[in-house]
């Protein structure tokens, strides 16, 4: 999509694409990296490219049903990507199975306890394994919030669930993630304040 595409909102691009299907490539150019990154957090790297492709092809074929009231199509695309991930759970499973295996291997080493001052790479492994162990419904909302940075309303739209459900899943998901990360106990005041600030941004 050229400069003309930049002048249009996502909703306008989608509307244009009903007459000129090539306009839809503008949506790809605008959001493919975000979709790729989101899928990359949830699927084996060997599957991500195909899943990105399937997301946009599905979106293209569903564009007639896009709700033009929403200028930003990113939640819609990420919702489609999430649905496709569910359809291809094996793809996600391959990634998470590897992480769980790492977790089991590590668990055999009694000296390997996670502490905050470990190298960041190891922290990252730890977080990855915790995400792998999360309940999928919580994982959906947390990854949409923390990755692409969707708002609660946008997550609700992406997953076609009520916003109240998003709020409760965020709350429970964070608690579960905290527990899986070994951050047991109640939130220290400092963290509570940080959380409040963060949620303020997300809201």
């Amino acid at each position, binding site marked *: 999509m050229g400069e003309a595409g930049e002048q249009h909102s996502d909703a306008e691009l989608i509307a244009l694409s009903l007459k000129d299907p090539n306009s839809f490539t503008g949506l790809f150019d605008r959001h493919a990296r975000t979709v790729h990154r989101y899928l990359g957090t949830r699927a084996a790297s060997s599957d991500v*490219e195909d899943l990105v492709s399937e997301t946009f*092809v599905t979106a293209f074929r569903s564009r007639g049903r896009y709700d033009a009231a929403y200028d930003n199509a990113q939640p819609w695309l990420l919702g489609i990507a999430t649905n496709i991930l569910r359809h291809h759970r094996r793809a996600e499973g391959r990634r998470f199975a590897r992480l769980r295996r790492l977790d089991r291997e590590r668990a055999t080493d009694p000296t390997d306890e996670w502490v905050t001052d470990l190298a960041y790479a190891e922290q990252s492994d730890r977080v990855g394994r915790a995400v792998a162990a999360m309940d999928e419904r919580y994982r959906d909302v947390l990854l949409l919030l923390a990755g692409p940075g969707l708002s609660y309303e946008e997550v609700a739209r992406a997953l076609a669930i009520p916003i109240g459900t998003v709020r409760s899943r965020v709350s429970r998901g964070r608690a579960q993630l905290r527990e899986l990360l070994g951050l047991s106990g109640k939130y220290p005041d400092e963290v509570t304040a*940080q959380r409040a600030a963060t949620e303020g941004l997300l809201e």
Partner: protein
Amino acid sequence: MIDELELLRQHLDETADPAPDLAKARAQLELAIAAAGPKPRSAIRHVRPKALTVSGLVAVAAAAIVLSVTVFSAPPPRGHARSTPPVSGLLPVGTQLRLLSDRIAQQDIPSLQSDQLLLTESHIAVQAQVNNGQAQATIALDVKRWSNGTGQACTSTLAQPAEFASPAQQAAWGGLGLRDAPSVQPVTGCLGGNTGSGAQADSLTGDGQLLDVSKLPTDPAVLAQELQNGTTGIPAIDQLIFDQANATIAFQRAAVLLLGPVVGATPEFESTLYQALALLPGVTSLGSTTTHDGQAGLGFAADSQEGQSAIVVDPVTGRLLELRDFDDSSALSSLATAYLGAGPLQVTSYGTTLQWLDPVGPPAVVKSADLPADVPLCIFGTAKPGIDQQLPTLEGQLDQQYGHTSGGSSFSGAGALAPGTPATIEWTFSGPGEQFNEYLAAARASGLFSSVNVI
């Protein structure tokens, strides 16, 4: 102190691919766009009476779906005793269609038990042209379809290696980055869920919607008008993307309804459809016509500037026997992408001509358990109103209790596809077995669904 959400963000930043390769994904999107775009101008037009508007390798798959006609329209077994004389092809076209309307009204619509499926098979020939005829090939398909009584189906498609008119054509085909034979055989999938995700969910009209014909008018004149105006109320029919100048569009819409897969079909519906066909302008009789596999039928066609679309029907029963030169805009990317080679893709446009589609023998009622091992088995659940948020919970519970299904699952929230659409869930299994039975029993016992269908 540590905030778990911040840790998660850091983790995502750390693990993100800084320079993802998006070229293949973009190429596949362009492929889908090309399939839905303006009709490519093909050299084939000069040698064939008709070049199709919507085409592409993907329409190979569309052609595969076209075989759904055989679900309710397959011919009787050969040698079947016929006490009723055939309708003469010498009669005026309107008279033929009205007589056939009476015949089809006497045909039974097969009804299936919950553990039964209707197996049909079709042979299809498709001519594909790429980049305005820069490369051309003919592809033969053998498509088997297992359908249940509510419109869901599983398909298995075997494609023969592409045939070329000359070595130069074969070289051109390969030079565009295409394979002679699909990389996956057979291509299998489930159809008819409302999940709207995945190429396997495609229908004839390309968006996975079922054709519910139960609310169509019973007055042939009203139906004919709605077919012409695209106001049947069935989006998949009304929004068919044909060349708007194509005078055959009403005829083709009627043909799509004859093909299905449809829900709510009755002999009366098909009878009304034939009467409506008789009222459409431009529908002509081809007289006695022999199908590609030698069955005697009556041909009907609609001419346009582009050529001619035709159907062939049984002169005794009125059942559809064959399609010729049929346009469709649907896409089944799983089959199209199976023709993509490993090298750079040079396809900028492509189209196909469905040369013919012939059912192979009569449909057979089989048990669900008789599905071949390589064909997926699916459970489709449609949620009761207002409880769709409970479906992911159930999905998670069953996942934990019985393990991941081999083919994954797909959930679509209420209104996710269009306002008013119910939430649905679809579980896919590699075949029947204990896990399938456990999921099915649990879904039915959950009380969350207005319907639970199996295919």
